[in-house]
């Protein structure tokens, strides 16, 4: 430091420490910091992402405090409010779906003052066991990796022409999906479909239409067969459960017809699959004109792969045997043992013989879905017990009668369209669980046959054909990346019209004559 520098004082002569800015700036800044703090601690985005949850709760609260309409009990009003909340949550998926059944169970105990043990008992019925067992069976079967052999078997029957292969895939997928869950079959057969496509050409653009034909054959095969037997989908088991819970009276032999067994259901619903089978194949080929009709190259490669895998192992044969035995049991023993127990027997056999590990079943079964159907059925029964379903049914029937759809074909059409509308907004199982008690009671009040109306509801719920998200099988094939969203609408709209016509024809011309 120089001598001259000593005469300077930095604090005095150099940069100045000015007084802090005025009060207002400080006040603003502290306010902004507090806001940041609140924003950090309260994740406002949480309220936004879960907005429908809060909206649903608010709607439920308003419905509960609203004046009770005449003819409806207070408990009925609460159950209806719960159903509306559950429906909003099903449609918006504001919370993970398995949350909804938990909330239903809590609501039954807290709001309806039902005994907790009674609620717990109402959750587990034979139908729920049946759904659970079917899901487990499906995992066990898919684990065996029989997909290529099934494809090879199809090709051996149909030859190498695309039209016939498409028909074969639809038929075989349908034949399997009639007995186990449709999404399982779609998941099992998707690799085969993609294999056939890629073996034809590696460039997806060159085989876009061919891909659409093959993949839709899988999806529609699964979809049209899902209604054929009770084990084809959870919705069928739910309707069976409702028939029993709502109309069966042990003291009245007349009501034994409401105990639906496996074989009777199949007699009613299998034609729905058989009639639509050729129509699907024709529609697919008519809608998407495949680039090539000869798939011999792909088939020869498939054959090479199958031969490389060697002959079918004993575990494969055993799987087929147990599966056939289970179906046999469902058809002939369900009266004595119940559908659920037979499904569990099949699963136990798979586990005992070491064909599947429990870890695989545990990872492959969506337990949330089991819980969902259990709670939904329980709530449906509660709706009937409190008279809420009856009240809604009467109100709904008044509306139907005003538009001239109070009976017969008009009534059936209205029920079918209502179910299609609801099941295009949420999963088919949930749609049937919500609608079941209402439509069955409406049928009862209107003097229609609840059995026929139940079938219409269960089958119509499978007509969600318009979007890739409408059905699990569609979501699975859409995930392959070969298809566009509008493809689903193109073929789906045609398929929906055809399906409704066939369903109403069966309801008018076939079912009344086989009714017990």
């Amino acid at each position, binding site marked *: 430091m120089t001598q001259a520098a000593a005469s300077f004082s*930095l*604090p005095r002569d*150099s940069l100045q420490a000015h007084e*802090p800015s005025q009060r207002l700036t400080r006040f603003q800044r502290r306010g902004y910091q507090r806001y940041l703090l609140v924003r*950090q601690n309260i994740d406002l985005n*949480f309220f936004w992402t879960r907005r429908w949850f809060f909206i649903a709760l608010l709607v439920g609260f308003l419905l509960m405090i609203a004046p009770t309409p005449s003819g409806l009990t207070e408990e009925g009003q609460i159950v209806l409010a719960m159903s509306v909340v559950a429906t909003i949550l099903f449609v918006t998926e504001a919370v993970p779906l398995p949350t909804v059944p938990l909330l239903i169970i809590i609501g039954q105990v807290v709001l309806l003052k039902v005994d907790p043990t009674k609620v717990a008992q109402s959750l587990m019925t034979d139908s729920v066991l049946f759904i659970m067992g079917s899901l487990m069976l499906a995992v066990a079967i898919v684990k065996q990796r029989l997909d290529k052999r099934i494809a090879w078997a199809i090709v051996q029957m149909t030859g190498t022409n695309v039209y016939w292969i498409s028909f074969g895939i639809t038929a075989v997928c349908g034949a399997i999906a009639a007995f186990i869950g449709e999404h399982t079959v779609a998941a099992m057969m998707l690799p085969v479909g993609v294999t056939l496509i890629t073996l034809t050409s590696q460039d997806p653009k060159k085989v876009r239409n061919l891909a659409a034909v093959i993949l839709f054959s899988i999806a529609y095969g699964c979809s049209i067969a899902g209604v054929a037997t009770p084990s084809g989908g959870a919705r069928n088991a739910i309707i069976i459960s409702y028939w029993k819970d709502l109309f069966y009276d042990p003291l009245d032999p007349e009501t034994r017809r409401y105990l639906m067994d496996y074989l009777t259901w199949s007699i009613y619903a299998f034609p729905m699959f058989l009639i639509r089978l050729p129509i699907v194949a024709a529609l697919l080929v008519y809608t998407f004109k495949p680039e090539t009709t000869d798939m011999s190259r792909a088939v020869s490669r498939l054959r090479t792969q199958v031969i490389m895998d060697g002959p079918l192992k004993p575990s494969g044969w055993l799987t087929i045997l147990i599966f056939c035995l289970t179906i046999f049991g469902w058809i002939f023993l369900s009266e004595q043992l119940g559908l659920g127990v037979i499904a569990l027997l099949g699963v136990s056999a798979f586990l005992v013989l070491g064909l599947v590990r429990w870890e695989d079943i545990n990872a492959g079964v969506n337990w949330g879905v089991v819980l969902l159907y259990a709670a939904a059925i329980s709530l449906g029964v509660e709706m009937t017990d409190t008279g809420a379903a009856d009240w809604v049914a009467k109100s709904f029937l008044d509306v139907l009668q005003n538009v001239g759809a109070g009976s017969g074909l008009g009534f059936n059409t209205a029920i079918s369209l209502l179910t299609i509308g609801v099941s295009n907004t949420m999963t088919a199982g949930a749609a049937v669980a919500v609608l079941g008690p209402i439509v069955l009671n409406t049928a009862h009040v209107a003097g229609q046959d609840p059995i026929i109306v139940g079938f219409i509801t269960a089958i119509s719920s499978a007509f969600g054909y318009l979007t890739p998200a409408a059905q699990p099988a569609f979501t699975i094939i859409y995930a392959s990346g070969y298809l566009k969203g509008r493809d689903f609408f193109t073929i789906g709209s045609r398929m929906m019209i055809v399906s409704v016509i066939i369903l109403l024809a069966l309801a008018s011309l076939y079912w009344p004559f086989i009714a017990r």
Partner: protein
Amino acid sequence: MLFTRTKLSDRQERAVQKTLHNLRQQRRNRFRILACIDGTEESFITVTFAARLAVNDECDIIVLYVRPIDQALWSGGLQLRIARQNMMESGFELPGVRDLKRSLEILKEEGIDVESWPQEASHQDAWGDPAGDTKVEYRSPKGRSVVLKLKTAPDAAHGILDQYELGPYNLMVLGEPSRWRSEFKAWFGTGVVQEVVTHASCSVLVARPSLDKEGFFICTDGSSRSMQAVRRAAVLAHMQGASITLFSVAPDEASRPAAEEAVANAKALLKAMKITVTDTRTAVGDTVDEIIETGSSYRIIVVTDEGRSRLQRIFKGSKASDVVRGARTSVLDVR
């Protein structure tokens, strides 16, 4: 009374205020430099700059690390705050403590060794965070102090500005800005450095790796405000023994005499203060571009802040800010 801020009697209150006033007066007699670090390798240059500028025992250095408040809600169901409390009870160091210790080593390399100085630690609650604000003060026998401050705030920029109010400080030293938005966009959030430079009440030095260069490059436009700034910056340069270059830019050739006059006036002013000017330069062209271009070979460019509010900046801009933003060397924005 609902809005009384104190429960003390008038006499006690007066005593408190008097103590505070004395403390502030004491601080006014010190040249206080606030060096802000954020733990990145580049940010430690602020400590080196602070050490170089703090030439004598009149200067205090405060090293500040602002730690964002622990978020409480979204941490996988476990409140981070509880976890932090447990960690502190187990004797783990908070983030920032290690960096503050490292800054002591840097000061030691620069010749300010605080190890033998008596130290005093204090702690204050802040924003309800368990860590709060922690301060360690080292005071030399000659009255010089070095403070390490670990501050908790909802965000870094406002933490630094809050710290100023506890100060005040003569100079804030900040690291290089990583993000700098237009004056309009800056309303909706911007980087820490821009936020502090915009709002600070005192002069700000934005430190870039320019320690290998020499000299103060002091810019003036001839206004009385800028002459004040020249005078104050020159004293700082002079005390450091650094060379001083005076610079002025004319927008066109016709205005060059005015620019030359501004430089000559500044030189005369400094000469009267017995401060030697090494060089004077003028240029013609865009003010900001010329300053950045010509000043890049000097250690520090000195610009005068126009003192405009945020609203005024949107319409008029701020040449000082533009230089701070675009320069390739350190910039001292004098207020």
